[in-house]
């Protein structure tokens, strides 16, 4: 059913349809509208969940760990400072192999304090073992929640998942979204019934410690689960497409990339702007295309290498920076994927802390890339430095 709705409300509605039994979250801009909407659903009986109004984010995710281990489907949402306050639990939840789904309304990290969008928050936790999905628009932000639960809870995976979408740019924007009905949602996502849980009928110890005799292999197994998530994403992304017409089996999406000489690689909502810019550049005869990464963990290394194998140069746009390295996280990953090839990969850091990204910026970056200039902060205001 098509409805025009705010991104946060669309996400909240999708979460409601996923039927979590326990919701535990703490308000933070720009995620607040999601948790307010969920509280409203619970207050009005349209979501049969226990909503734990925790006192901080560390407790929000900790309560999810407990509830998930006890065998319930659980949900949380946060961003930026809240995510970092959770950080210890983020690693813990993945190591304990608990399929928690958490929305991240991406926001910059302080200091300086900024409530505005970039992707520094979730990207900084890319090594924690969670699946990372990045949405381009609100339709995708909505749909990815169903997929995230399905993949996370698959017995071959058993990993938690972030569903990331740009704070304000998506969370606070009204867009038409085709929302599943409860019946449709139920036909895709079945009740969570794990084979192991905290249960007096079959007592188990969860979260034991591992000596050097075991730890190394546990990390290997968690990494294997990331690898196995690839097949699960393909399978369930396709199933979603068959059922509802929107296929999410691919980790990456190509836009006018087939005959492109310059490829732009990016994630999230800026890809809308990039596509518009590409259309204009194409009209002007420039052979430019886009490779949008939707799944950042597990990182689709082969898919990226294959999709970019024919281009002359690659411009990777990052709304994050791995401080003290050559650039942003996406550029580092793409360069790794392209290792051994002679195609130059240039990184551009842009849009930090809510700085607008305009079509002309994209065109400018393509020009820089053609000149071989990159691996830089793009769009710095000269008068400020």
């Amino acid at each position, binding site marked *: 059913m098509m409805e025009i709705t705010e991104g946060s409300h669309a996400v909240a509605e999708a979460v409601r349809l996923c039927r979590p039994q326990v919701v535990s979250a703490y308000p933070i801009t720009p995620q607040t509208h999601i948790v307010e909407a969920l509280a409203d659903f619970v207050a009005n009986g349209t979501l049969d969940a*226990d909503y734990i109004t*925790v006192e901080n984010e560390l*407790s929000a995710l900790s309560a999810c760990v*407990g509830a998930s*281990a*006890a*065998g319930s489907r659980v949900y949380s949402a946060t961003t930026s400072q809240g995510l970092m306050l959770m950080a210890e639990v983020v690693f813990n939840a993945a190591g304990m192999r608990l399929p928690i789904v958490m929305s991240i309304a991406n926001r910059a990290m302080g200091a300086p304090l900024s409530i505005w969008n970039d992707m520094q928050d979730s990207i900084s936790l890319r090594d924690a073992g969670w699946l990372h999905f990045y949405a381009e628009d609100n339709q995708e932000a909505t749909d990815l929640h169903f997929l995230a639960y399905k993949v996370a809870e698959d017995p071959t995976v058993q990993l938690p998942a972030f569903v990331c979408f740009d704070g304000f740019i998506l969370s606070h924007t009204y867009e038409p979204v085709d929302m599943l009905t409860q019946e449709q949602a139920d036909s895709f996502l079945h009740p969570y019934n794990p084979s192991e849980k905290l*249960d007096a009928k079959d*007592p188990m110890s969860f979260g034991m*410690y591992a000596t050097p005799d075991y730890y190394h292999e546990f990390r290997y197994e968690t990494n294997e689960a990331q690898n196995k998530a690839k097949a699960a994403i393909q399978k369930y992304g396709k199933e979603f497409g068959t059922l509802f017409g929107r296929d999410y089996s691919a980790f990456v999406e190509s836009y006018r990339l087939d005959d492109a000489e310059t490829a732009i690689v990016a994630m999230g909502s800026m890809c809308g702007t990039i596509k518009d810019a590409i259309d204009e550049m194409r009209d002007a005869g420039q052979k430019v295309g886009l490779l949008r990464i939707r799944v950042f963990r597990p990182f689709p290394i082969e898919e990226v290498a294959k999709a970019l194998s024919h281009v002359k140069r690659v411009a990777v746009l990052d709304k994050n920076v791995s401080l003290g390295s050559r650039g942003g996280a996406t550029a580092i990953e793409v360069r790794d994927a392209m290792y051994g090839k002679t195609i130059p990969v240039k990184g551009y850091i842009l849009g930090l802390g809510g700085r607008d990204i305009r079509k002309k910026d994209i065109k400018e970056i393509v020009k820089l890339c053609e000149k071989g200039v990159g691996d830089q902060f793009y769009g710095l205001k000269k008068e400020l430095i």
Partner: protein
Amino acid sequence: MAEKKTCDLFDCGHRACGGCGAALSARLVTEAAGPETIVVASTGCMEVFSTPYPETAWKVPWIHSLFENAAAVASGIEAALKKQGRKEKVVIMAGDGATFDIGMICISGAFERGHDFTYICYDNEAYMNTGIQRSGATPYDASTTTSPAGKVSFGNKRPKKDMPAILAAHGAPYVATASIAYPADLMQKVQKAINTPGPCYVQVHAPCCTGWGFEGEQTIAIAKLAIETGLWVNFEMVDGTVTKVKKVVRKPVTEYLKTQKRFRHLFKPKLQEAEIAHIQAIADKNAEKYGIDIKVPPKKE
């Protein structure tokens, strides 16, 4: 050879030091709570000595997440059980460091929200797992590795934080202190806490031979002396009011202090009378506050 029955929910083979008070508390608490219990642990000695993978000593469902978040993990478990219509009881077993210090925010939030769980702090009065550093539960003048006695220091400079009062102030319906030296009383209190709806707290004195410096066989005797000197008071609070205290014929605090290396600097190289007087004053204050003294008529000459 006669047949042996094993009934304990906390199994043999754990790696606690011989004579460990905390290990005994795990046995007594699980025995009191019974098999329909989910135990939530914090990082610390008990977690480490009972669960090196895959050798768990726990025969009830058990979970450990982090050092500071047991109360929040328990909140989530309780919520999940409610939604699933399950009846198991949720019992946290956390150290004093996890309780008095790093877990305070999670505990305050969980008690304020009123979850139905029982929080048990096994109190060995320092961070034992990391090598005997002070905590908010370390008593006045105890020498620890971060509050060492030295030429210009008598050890820990602060008295023990009053955690039971803090949780009673949160509106906890049942708050109690107990000691491994009185197992029947301890088990009764645990059962009372479990059967009282809402968040309940039981603080269990659990002497640590390694951290306090005494022989393992003295664990119970030292726990008893803590009570007999008034440095530990066993009481019960229902809805914020003290309803029961263990009364004693009080002994001087030196009887307790001299048994442990952590207080040795108060006796050697010379007797620190002023410091001992200070500790005696703490015991006297406890005695007055809780009314623990049994008055014995003075012997006629």
